[in-house]
């Protein structure tokens, strides 16, 4: 049975319905990434977004079956409470990892490195967007794979 490590959540999903869809598709587990805390991901997403809103929503969704629904917090390092939210997501809310998209910051940005150190202290995995970034602005230059050598 496969595991899908890259599924976006909008913050409105019902965990049991996700599980039923997984059963139908023959998926063993999925990594569910919370909505971005700093901008509307899709038009139906509420414009008022904050870390706690998106992390709490994802934690509720994955509570239906934390074995099969693996929650990743979307951490945006340019927000002032990024490090604190890593603790909140991986500690208090017991999420399993972190997703990051280099959106107008390079992966070796000091603010990003502070996040990596926090994630490292929790010994959790990170998933980065890399390659062409399909957002309506000039963003792909931040996402080249060699930039991620910083993870060494």
């Amino acid at each position: 049975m496969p595991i899908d490590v890259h599924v976006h959540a909008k913050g409105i999903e019902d965990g049991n319905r996700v599980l039923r869809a997984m059963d139908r598709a023959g998926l063993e587990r999925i990594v569910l990434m919370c909505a971005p805390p700093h901008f509307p991901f899709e038009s139906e997403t509420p414009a008022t977004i904050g870390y706690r809103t998106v992390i709490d929503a994802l934690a509720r969704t994955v509570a239906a079956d934390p074995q099969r629904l693996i929650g990743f917090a979307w951490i945006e390092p340019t927000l002032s409470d990024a490090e604190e939210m890593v603790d909140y997501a991986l500690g208090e809310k017991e999420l399993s990892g972190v997703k990051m998209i280099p959106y107008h910051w390079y992966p070796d940005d000091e603010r990003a490195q502070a996040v990596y150190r926090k994630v490292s202290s929790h010994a959790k995995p990170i998933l980065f967007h890399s390659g062409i970034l399909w957002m309506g602005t000039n963003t792909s230059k931040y996402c080249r794979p060699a930039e991620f050598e910083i993870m060494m």
Partner: protein
Amino acid sequence: MAIDVHIHTRGTEDGNRILKAMDEVGMERVVLFAVPPRRAEDARSAKNPHKKSLDQIAKLVEVDRERLIGFAWIEPTLADAAEAVDYAFSEKGLFGVKMIPNHWYPSDQRCLAVYEKVNEYEKPMLFHTGILWGVSDTSQYCRPAFFEIMLHYPKIRFAMAHMSWPWTDECFAVCGKFRAAGGYKPESWRSYVDITSGAPRIWKVDAMRKGLAYMGDRQFVYGSDCFEAERAEALRRNLDMDREILRECGCSSETMERIFTTNALRWLGLA
């Protein structure tokens, strides 16, 4: 008939001789670049360092402005860059702008002033992209993803020259992003790939196959990178080679017509 969108001038050519060479090889129109304005100290201190090259190219194309399409070469690090765009379009009747990122990134503040001007005039641009031969450590500035900055200048149709070799995949991916930005409407897709050589043949065949499969045949334009516009043999050399490559890629005559003619007319705003 074909349109060659990538021809350099030296400032010494005669327009009638170019037209004669074009007739010999069946070239309908050519895009002629002005000579690059000097970046040396005397150019930096001069009041209008672009003026001489713009005057030269305007004079060259005046013999037949339908067939000889003059592009200004704008160097954004020179003080008169934005004014030179005005001068090129308003006073000299030039058609578009060519730029080479030579120790500046395409999102450099000085470039943005140039793009704003070109955007006002709704004119086409052609950027060197990919490995840059001949001038110091410069290729790092010419990667295709940097040209996503053009997302913010919605009235500019721009071409990435040399299919950005060796970053051809990145070039096509950037074009895919512009296709999405234009809502997948053919008329709103404003990024073009100038297939002007640079890529050795083995890469070019491979890249064209992938590019055509991913993007279709409407965004590619033909260029030669010719430096001898008065010589028919020089105009013909890459034309023959690229026709052969595209035949090898299985292109239909309709696709050939688009790549060698009609796509260029659309990019230039002539169709």
